[in-house]
Structures are given as structure tokens and as C-alpha cells.
């Protein structure tokens, strides 16, 4: 009997190795910094011993309790405002026949293109000491609690909306028919059919909004006045006082709500998925002029408010000297004349966002593809998935601080990365990894499970099948991932604010710095520039997607 040579083909070993490398890189990007920040928080700087002393000392520091309470209060109030607004908006989009739904949806998602500092800046121009509507908030009362709340509502609204849209979209028409046949009135229908089906979505939206508010420091920085919050305290401790260990302690505190919301959200999503039966009938909405008209009015008001905040920031960028010389001017775009990094910061941001989009998409897709589709790499799947879910539970501020501790450690062989663009790209990829990974996995799972098996039986190597079939079919998802990385990196402040250097200044950080230095108009100009480039990037990706769709229309039915 002939004994065939049956070593594993070299390509399989390569696939295994490559997937392992993806896991290793991701672990380095996440586990390393997290361990670093935890050890900072729990190691006493004086004695070098592990323990609670450092933690306890930081917690007992004056102002800590107050800023914690402030953060919680702020998050609660914002959640209470955003949730009903976003729910009604989502219901108007999903459950009425009002005209202009596409436009309304787009307008409501616009805040996603802006850095979180933008609404604060706009509020200064609207209601601040020199604001046009100063009388609405007399004596500068916009600087403080309510200013932050309004800014956070603007910033968190689209996040809540997206979750609620998903929840409301999965309606089963049969349940409503049954309820109508049984004679249930509108209110009872809402209580017995709608509410149970969206309650997980509501819960999910609530915890996401709460967490976003707690971990954001931008709004408080710009419009908070004397109102201190936890995230801002961390920023001040590290940037202002170089007190890294205090910063680490607050970072660990910020991990708690983020972790909690991660767990809650995960549970809620699971329940949500289980709710929709396989044979659910999609809901067809009938016209009802009164209801549709009210819905349109509501959406116009809300999106109008969001839009006017955005428009205010843009207007401020082009007006010579608010409110004394209301002429058009491009002077505020002379960034090189003010402190804050100049145009170089903007170009650097573009370059870095592009780098994050390219390398992030590459890492995410290769990792997901290998572990989902290539049998030899499948032992890594669990590890990759766990790591990929982690960033969702780590606030950008905490991740960035972790990067300082990890990469700046003298004994780290990767020390050389510190202070370069590379570390910014790494941190941004890590910060946005979860959503990108889930998008890739969802797209890959939609492919027939047996493509690889067929290819193997035809003796076509798996990487060729990836190139000829998997990638082309998944290209819309790949574009989506790249766009998400680009826009995210363009707008984020928290993930990068601790790790940029004067040589690698970024646009979003320069908004912060220019505002800090009192150049609010220049900050508005830079923020507008960020919005414009995010919007342009979205437009470019939309066109690419459209071209692609046209090309592939032949084979997509």
C-alpha cells in the first residue's frame, strides 16, 4: 500500500500563522495598554507595591466625589432627554408614512461627522456671553450643567437613534393585525405589542447614551465652566498636573460604567435577536395625514435644532468678529497664525485617518476572514472575537492613557513607536475595532459556508478564492469599514489626546487647544473643516459604493 506524503500544505501553516499574528497584534494593541493602566492605578508610586493605597488616596482627593456625582447627574439627565426624542424620531421614521424620511434620517445622523467639541463651541456662539440668544440663558448660565447637557444631547442623539431604528425595524405585522382584530386600542397596542418589542432597544440606547456622556470630557471642557466631571478630571490630572497615577485611577473608574453597559448591551442584543421569529411579516405603514404631519413637524424641529447647532459652528468659522463685525471672512482659517498646530494638524489628521482606514480595514478583514473561513486558522477564532469585543468596553480616554503607560515604558521594545504617527494609527484602529469587526463578520457569515470546501475540492488555494470570490462579494462591507475608520479617526479626541506630540498634532486636538487658548473662532473653523472632510469622505465612499453596486447589479439579483 502506498503511503502518501500528508504533511499539511504550507499555505495552511501560513494561514494559521497569519491569523495568530492578527491576534497577537490586537492583543498588543489592547491587552498591553489595559494591563499598563491597571498596574498604574494599583501600584503605589512611592513604594512600588501593589495595593489599594494609591487608589484610595486618589478617590479621597478633594473634588473627586463631587465630579463623580456631577458625571452621573449629567448622564442621567441627558439620557432622560435623549431617549424620548430619539424614540419618537425613530418611530416617525419607521412607523409613519411621512415624506422625506431619507433626508430626515441623514440630518439626524449628521452629528456623527463632528468632533464632540463642536456642539460646545456652537453653544458659546449661540448662548454665551456674546451669543445671539444670550437672553435664553442669562448671566452666562450656559457655561455649566445645561450647556454640557445640550452639547451631549447633540452628540449622543444619533447613537441612540441608530439603536432604536434597528429595534423598531423588526416589527412583526402579524402581531399588530392580531391586536387590531382583538379590538385593542392604540394605547393598548403600544403597551402590549410595541413596547415589549422595543424595550431591549430602549435599554440598550439608554446605557449607551449614559456611558457616552460619562466618558466624554470634550463638552465639559468647552462649555462646562466651573462644572467639573470625572472624565475632565482625568484629562486635567494628566495634561495639567502630570499626575499620571491619579489619571490612571480615574481611567479605571471610567471603565466601570463602560464595562457594565457593554454587558447590558450584549444581553439586550441577544434578547432582541431572539424576539424576531423567522416568519415575521414586515409591517406596511398606511398613510394617516394627521399622524404623518405631526411626525414631520416633530422631525423637522429636532433635526432643525441639530442642524442649527452645526450651522452655528460653521457660521462662526466664516464671520470676521462675532458679534461685532458680522462680515464674511476666511481669516479664522489662517491656523498657522495661532497656536494649535496650524494646517499641519489638519493634514496630519487626514493622513492618519487614511492610514487607520487602510491598515484598520486590512487587519479587521484579514482577521475576520481567516478565522471565519479558513479551517486552518479557526483555532484562533474565539481569541480574536474576544479581543475584538473588548474596545467596546474601553473608553477612548482610558485606552489612550493606557497607550502612554504601555508604549512609553522604557523596557518596552516597541518604545520607538511612541511619539510617531504609528502609535496614533494603532490606537485609533484599536478604539474603533469592535464595530468594524462585527461588520466584517456579518458580511462574511452571509456567504455560503461551503465556498471554501468547493474550492479545496477543486484544488484552488484558499487565498485565491478569497481574492476571486470572498473579497468581491464583501466589498460593500469593506468600504463601510474603511469609511467608519476614517470618520471615526477624523473626529475622535479622547483616544488621541494623550499620545499626540507637537510633531504629530491632530485637527481634533487642535480644536481643543485653540479653544483653550481663547481662539474660539479658529477652533470653530477647524471643527467645521473636520465635519467637511468627514462629509466628503462619506460622499466619496457613497459614490464608490454606488459604482460598485452598478457593476455588481448583474450578479446580485
Amino acid at each position, binding site marked *: 500500500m502506498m503511503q*502518501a506524503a500528508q504533511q499539511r500544505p504550507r499555505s495552511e501553516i501560513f494561514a494559521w500563522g497569519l491569523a495568530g499574528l492578527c491576534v497577537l497584534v490586537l492583543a498588543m494593541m489592547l491587552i498591553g495598554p489595559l494591563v499598563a493602566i491597571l498596574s498604574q492605578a494599583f501600584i503605589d508610586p512611592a513604594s512600588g507595591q501593589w495595593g489599594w493605597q494609591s487608589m484610595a488616596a486618589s478617590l479621597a482627593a478633594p473634588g473627586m466625589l463631587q465630579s463623580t456625582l456631577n458625571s452621573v447627574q449629567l448622564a442621567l439627565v441627558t439620557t432622560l432627554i435623549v431617549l424620548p426624542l430619539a424614540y419618537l424620531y425613530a418611530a416617525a421614521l419607521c412607523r409613519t408614512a411621512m415624506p422625506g424620511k431619507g433626508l430626515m434620517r441623514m440630518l439626524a445622523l449628521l452629528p456623527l461627522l463632528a468632533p464632540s467639541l463642536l456642539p460646545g463651541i456652537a453653544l458659546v456662539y449661540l448662548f454665551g456671553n456674546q451669543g445671539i440668544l444670550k437672553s435664553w440663558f442669562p448671566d452666562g448660565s450656559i457655561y455649566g450643567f445645561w450647556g454640557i447637557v445640550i452639547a451631549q444631547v447633540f452628540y449622543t442623539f444619533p447613537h441612540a437613534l441608530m439603536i432604536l431604528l434597528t429595534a423598531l425595524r423588526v416589527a412583526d405585522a402579524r402581531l399588530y393585525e392580531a391586536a387590531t382584530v382583538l379590538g385593542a386600542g392604540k394605547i393598548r397596542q403600544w403597551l402590549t405589542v410595541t413596547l415589549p418589542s422595543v424595550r431591549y432597544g430602549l435599554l440598550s440606547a439608554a446605557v449607551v447614551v449614559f456611558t457616552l456622556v460619562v466618558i466624554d470630557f470634550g463638552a465639559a471642557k468647552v462649555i462646562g465652566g466651573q462644572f467639573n466631571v470625572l472624565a475632565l478630571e482625568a484629562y486635567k490630572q494628566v495634561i495639567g498636573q502630570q499626575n499620571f497615577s491619579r489619571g490612571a485611577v480615574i481611567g479605571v473608574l471610567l471603565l466601570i460604567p463602560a464595562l457594565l453597559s457593554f454587558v447590558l448591551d450584549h444581553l439586550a442584543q441577544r434578547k432582541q435577536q431572539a424576539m424576531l421569529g423567522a416568519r415575521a411579516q414586515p409591517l406596511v405603514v398606511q398613510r394617516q395625514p394627521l399622524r404623518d404631519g405631526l411626525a414631520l413637524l416633530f422631525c423637522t424641529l429636532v433635526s432643525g435644532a441639530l442642524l442649527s447647532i452645526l450651522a452655528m459652528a460653521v457660521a462662526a468659522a466664516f464671520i470676521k468678529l462675532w458679534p461685532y463685525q458680522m462680515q464674511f471672512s476666511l481669516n479664522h482659517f489662517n491656523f498657522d497664525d495661532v497656536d494649535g498646530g496650524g494646517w499641519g494638524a489638519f493634514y496630519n489628521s487626514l493622513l492618519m485617518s487614511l492610514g487607520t482606514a487602510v491598515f484598520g480595514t486590512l487587519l479587521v478583514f484579514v482577521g475576520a476572514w481567516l478565522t471565519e473561513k479558513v479551517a486552518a486558522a479557526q483555532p484562533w477564532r474565539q481569541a480574536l472575537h474576544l479581543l475584538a469585543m473588548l474596545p467596546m468596553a474601553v473608553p477612548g480616554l482610558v485606552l489612550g492613557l493606557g497607550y502612554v503607560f504601555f508604549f512609553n515604558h522604557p523596557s518596552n521594545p516597541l518604545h520607538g513607536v511612541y511619539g510617531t504617527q504609528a502609535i496614533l494609527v494603532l490606537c485609533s484602529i484599536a478604539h474603533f475595532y469592535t464595530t468594524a469587526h462585527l461588520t466584517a463578520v456579518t458580511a462574511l457569515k452571509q456567504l*455560503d459556508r461551503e465556498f471554501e470546501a468547493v474550492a479545496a475540492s477543486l484544488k484552488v488555494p484558499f487565498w485565491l478564492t478569497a481574492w476571486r470570490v470572498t473579497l468581491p462579494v464583501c466589498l460593500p462591507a469593506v468600504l463601510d469599514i474603511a469609511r467608519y475608520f476614517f470618520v471615526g479617526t477624523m473626529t475622535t479626541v479622547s483616544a488621541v489626546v494623550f499620545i499626540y506630540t507637537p510633531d504629530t498634532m491632530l485637527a481634533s486636538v487642535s480644536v481643543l487647544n485653540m479653544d483653550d487658548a481663547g481662539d474660539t473662532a479658529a477652533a470653530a473653523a477647524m471643527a467645521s473643516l473636520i465635519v467637511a472632510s468627514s462629509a466628503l469622505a462619506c460622499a466619496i465612499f457613497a459614490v464608490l459604493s454606488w459604482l460598485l453596486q452598478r457593476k455588481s447589479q448583474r450578479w446580485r439579483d
Partner: protein
Amino acid sequence: MQTELDHRELDIRQLGKSFGAFTALKNIDLSVNKGEFVCLLGPSGCGKTTLLRMIAGLERCEQGQILQAGRDITRASPAQRDYGIVFQSYALFPNLNIRDNIAYGLKGRQEDRQRRVDELLELIGLPGLDRKYPAQISGGQQQRVALARALATSPSLLLLDEPLSALDAQVREHLRFEIKSLQQRLNVTTIMVTHDQEEALTMADRIVVMNHGVIEQIGTPEQIYHQPASRFVANFVGHCNWLSATASGTRSVTLGQADLLTAPEQNLRAGEPCELYIRPEDIELLPSWDPESHTALGKLLHRELIGSIYRLRVAVAQWGGVELQIVATHREMANLRIDDGQLIPVRIPPGRLRSFGSGARV
């Protein structure tokens, strides 16, 4: 010895497979000859697909051995084996047209590949569709394209996992015939998974009946149908009447008030209870009463028209009130002219009753 191995395409020895604590396959022994068409038949979850995937190298083999043409491929990767495969979903590449799908595994010069694809398109009877995409052709056509793609590289073994189950009844019957004749023309060894007994009986040279991860019986369609090796096989392939009787000799039993002769060599022991079976089509309906020990009067409970035949339910008081299922042709029914509730003479021909031992295998 050498000659016997020469015409073996596949030799499976003591194959086993578990998923955690669950045993999916146990002690599988199977040989497939060159050019043979073998069907793996069994109920859902019995391990047919698992066995096929192990032959394909898509599931790791933990116990036993698989030899293809004498070569040990137990641990070979799919690419190191020689087979073509068609899945239930067909797994056609959606972004490649029919031509590129079929040519996917072909190597060599462009013209040679084109010629081969044309040949295959001719073979499956779909010339002219080569520029279409899978989403643009019907299920039956997709099925044939998947077949052509699997056959393109002229593999010595063809594996089919429920290739027809996604199609509607008419197309399915037509394709059954086409696949079979294609297989005979190309003389390619074929293993097909199915849970449809009709499909297995009409297409296979030999059928492997599986249940709970073990092979119950291997045999030609005739053997499987007429000499089932177990109660499971008898029930799964075709219909059966089961009669509880008491043995009165080595080949005779008492059923109610009647003494009936069974087939020879049923290992009956006088005085012991036994379980006997008979196919519905083996029971005769008589136009007139004929006093004979194997005849009794039955009462027609119900009849059902199933296309070309009738299926009747008849209760026979004399045989202990047993309810029998009987089939009758239209001609028979016209001759008998009976209605529900009426009495009719029924006959169990001597030698047709069989058992699987005295309740040993239930």
C-alpha cells in the same frame, strides 16, 4: 488480493467520529467499487453528511482509516484528495458567471479550459447560458452547473450531498434520471447522500442505510427492499405491516384463530411470541371467498387514492383484529367494487411473512 484492490475506489475501515460527547459515526465499514453509484440513506441527523464530509476531508478523522484507490488519505487535506463535490446549497460563486464557475478548478492554457467548459456545458445541456450569473438561472440549472463544476477536473470520485432536495418534485424526478445517466456515461464513482428512499432506490447500484451513526445494511435496492436486515430498514424503506403472533413451529405461527406459514429460516421457537412483518403489496385481495387457511374476511375501514394506486386499511377479526395496510391497483379496485365498511376476503400468501427473530431485534 491485488485484483480486488484494483477495482476498489474507496475503502473505509472502522471509521468513527464524535462531536464532544455525541457520537456521530461508529464502526463504519464501507467499500465502494470503481464506477459504482452508492447512496447513503437514512433519517435526518443519522450522520450521512458527516460521513460524506469525512470522505471529502472536511471533517477531521479521529478513528479508523480511509483509503482511496489504495492510498491512505485518512489525514490528507481536501486538496490532497481526488474528488468533486456538490452541496445541497450548490455553493455557486455569485459574482462569477456560469462559465467562470465551471472553469474555477481548471488549469492550463486558456483555449483548453474554454474547450473543456464548452464540453461540460454541452454535457449538462445548458449551452448558451454561460454568460449568465447564478442568480439569473433556475434552481435546476444551478444544480447542473454545480455538477459540471465538480466534474470539470475529471475527478475519480463524485460526492453529492442531497443534490436534489432544494428542487420541486417534477424537476427532481427529471434530474434524477439525468444525473444517473451522466454518471453511467462518465463511469465516475459516485456517493450520494439522501433521505429520500425513492431517490435511493431508483438511482443507486447499492444503498447504505444508516441510523444513529451506524450502518444498518448495505445492499442493492432489491436486497434492501426485499430482504431488509433489520426492523429499522424494513420500516424506513417502504411500508410494513407488523403482526404480533405466537410461533407454533419453526416456520408457522398462530395469529388470532388462524395458523399461517412463514418464510423459511425465520428462527422461530414454538410457543414463543414473535413479531412478523409483510409489505402491503404482498397481501392479496380476493374477488370471491376461497376457504383456505391463509384467507380471512377483512372489513374495509378506509381507502386513499395515491395517484396510480389505492391504499386501503382493512381490519381482520379472524387474525386477532389486526389492522392491515394493503395497496391495490385501479384495475383491482374496479374488479372488487367495494365500499368502506364492507367485508372483503384477504389472503396472506404462504411464505411471505417474515420476522427478525423472536423479538430479538425490535
